[in-house]
């Protein structure tokens, strides 16, 4: 009897809770990062409600699996993930506890955005943790290439159309528009970076391979001795020697890393430390996928000019 009462109360609460979302008819989308959320918003327009989990200024490898994220997933029609094991440390328990059949891996409401993009640094041959925290499925920071942005958008558009067949034309039109605007913007970004093609730089973590690949920068070293391993004195000394030898004047750092070692290296080599946004929301100027590149390119060009490197 008592159990029945509780069940009724729970049922009512549940119905009350889910009613407003259904009434609006919007596709409820959760993305693991702000980058994916920004692109999903471009494609989904007013037909979706979007939310994201990791902030652009936090290290996406080390997000805490907070129970409040379970609530977000519980209500989602679609979960978009970066994939390539970026979220392996925190997403699986969230999905498991979401009680949401739609967003389980392999279900219709689960989209791995890495399906139609160019993935770099896929390890060849033997992979061991002696190499640090390597990603066996390739570098997951693939969204920092506008061409990959188009691939992500295409995958998202296809998934939206699959879930809301009635709005297929709407999504496809917005995808075409987004891709065109991105192509135009990319020309502008490439032109801004063209004078610095082949410029040698150093980055903190391996967060920027797709960015440097697209915009013609040559990464000659990393502040981290190995992925996920904090800087060591011997590696830092080696890096300083190498930077002096190759005349490297720019160090790219993600906003969530400590600047002490990069600054020390900069003092010794005369290089400039540039904090770039690796994600939408990484700095306050980078509010969308477009302004992310606007900010990063402008910041980088300013720094390169100031560093005196050609």
């Amino acid at each position, binding site marked *: 009897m008592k159990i029945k009462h509780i069940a009724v109360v729970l049922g009512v609460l549940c119905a009350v809770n889910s009613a407003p979302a259904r009434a609006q008819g919007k596709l409820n989308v959760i993305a693991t990062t702000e980058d994916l959320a920004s692109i999903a918003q471009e494609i989904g327009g007013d037909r979706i409600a979007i939310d994201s989990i990791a902030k652009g200024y936090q*290290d996406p490898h080390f997000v805490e699996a907070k129970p409040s994220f379970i609530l977000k997933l519980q209500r989602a029609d679609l979960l978009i993930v970066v994939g390539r094991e970026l979220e392996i440390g925190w997403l699986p328990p969230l999905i498991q506890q979401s009680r949401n059949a739609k967003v389980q891996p392999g279900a219709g409401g689960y989209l791995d955005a890495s399906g139609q993009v160019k993935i770099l640094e896929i390890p060849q041959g033997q992979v061991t943790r002696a190499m640090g925290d390597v990603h066996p499925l390739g570098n997951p920071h693939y969204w920092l290439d506008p061409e990959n942005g188009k691939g992500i958008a295409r995958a998202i558009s296809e998934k939206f159309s699959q879930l809301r067949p009635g709005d297929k034309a709407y999504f496809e039109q917005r995808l075409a528009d987004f891709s065109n605007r991105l192509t135009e913007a990319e020309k502008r970004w490439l032109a801004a970076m063209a004078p610095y093609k082949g410029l040698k730089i150093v980055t903190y973590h391996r967060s920027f391979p797709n960015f440097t690949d697209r915009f013609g920068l040559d990464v000659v070293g990393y502040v981290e001795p190995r992925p996920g391993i904090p800087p060591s004195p011997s590696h830092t000394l080696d890096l300083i020697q190498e930077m002096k030898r190759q005349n490297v004047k720019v160090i790219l750092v993600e906003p969530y890393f400590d600047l002490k070692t990069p600054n020390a290296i900069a003092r010794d080599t005369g290089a400039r430390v540039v904090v770039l946004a690796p994600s939408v929301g990484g700095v306050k100027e980078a509010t969308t996928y477009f302004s992310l590149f606007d900010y990063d390119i402008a910041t980088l060009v300013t720094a390169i000019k100031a560093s005196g490197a050609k």
Partner: protein
Amino acid sequence: MRSSGIWLATTIAVCGFVAVPATSWAQQAPAPGDAAAQALRQEIAQLRTEFEARLAALEAKLSATGGGAAPPAPEPAAQTAAAPAAQVPPGAEGAGGPGGALPVYGGGSAASKVFNPDMAVVGNFLGVGGSNSVNPAPAMEMRESEVSFQAIVDPYARADFFLAFGETGVDLEEGYVTFPTLPGGLLMKVGKLRASFGKLNTAHTHILPWADRPLVTENLVGGEEGIGDAGFSVARLIPNPWIFLEATGQVFRGDSGDIFHSSERSDLSVIGRLRGYHDITESTNVDLGASYARGHNASGIVDQTDLGRFTTELVGVDATIRWKPLRRSIYHSFVARTEGVFSRREQPDGRQSSNGFYVSGDYQLARRWFTGARYDASDRADDSSARDTGQSLLLTYWPSEFSQIRGQFRRTKYAEGVTANELLFQFQFSIGAHGAHAF
């Protein structure tokens, strides 16, 4: 167990034997015109094929006997480049599966590792210095090697196994199936699992911020083993506009270390827990819980017959405050936690109402350095007049995400009037699949 070990060793030896010559052959360019060598090579290739087929049969036999660890797959180098290939099924990619072409299963190479569960081993080495006459631990001990197997069963379930290997024996720490998508928003687990009583009871030893467990766990909540039993668990989120609220109900057989003992089928133990969580800011959050447990204890057992039918009831409350600034989340964090347990144990000499608690703080100084302190006090379950108290100071160093080195100074004042000052040092290391971090 012994014979499967021999099988395994044989398999490994055979694998190594096959793989080495295969690689060296592959690297040699064929000498044109040398017919004798060509024939020899063909003969060897044929031998190899037969060998691999027999090896595959052996492996199948081995896994059919349930011989523990999965056999190592043949060396990738031994795979023929011309092996028939299939595309990764959609959805498998990025979900932990490899990309690109895969060998067709049942082919000569038999390298069907895709469906193997995620496997990992966590080693926990513990050393103790100083003296302790009440609760003596060995000077050095490979305290636990926890082997985990985790995978998705089918579209409706996933399974998790945790086998705890001591230096001498093996124990199924947990082994359960989870149904994450039941109707009504229920999350159900069936199998052997650690009960949802408080915060610590569900935590495996290697994720604790200490090298030991606090006195309240040792005295009132079943020690290292804790409340862990075979049964059902059902958890549901309680929708409300304010906070995360989860209710969990569990029914177990009623056998749990030295805390619960089942003499009849009806001696089931029950656990209930209500947990609330709220983000105060993006960096700070609070986690509160209340738990209840009830089961029969072993105090009435005389000559293997339970004459007394005595029960133990536990009530627990816990609170955790976490702080982790997102922009510097890998460098600094702070966790403060307390748990209180009230135990009411019926026994032949009357009811014992005991209580205990601990309060702890852990601060992350730098990316790889953590420091912590703990104060704990607890009566004993079967004698509420005996109260132990303890204090600990800790320093932990993480060389990487996959290993840690910890020192703990522990001072314990036992009810017997003995004070033990001890230095615990612990090495923990994990290999295999990257598990998710506990929260």
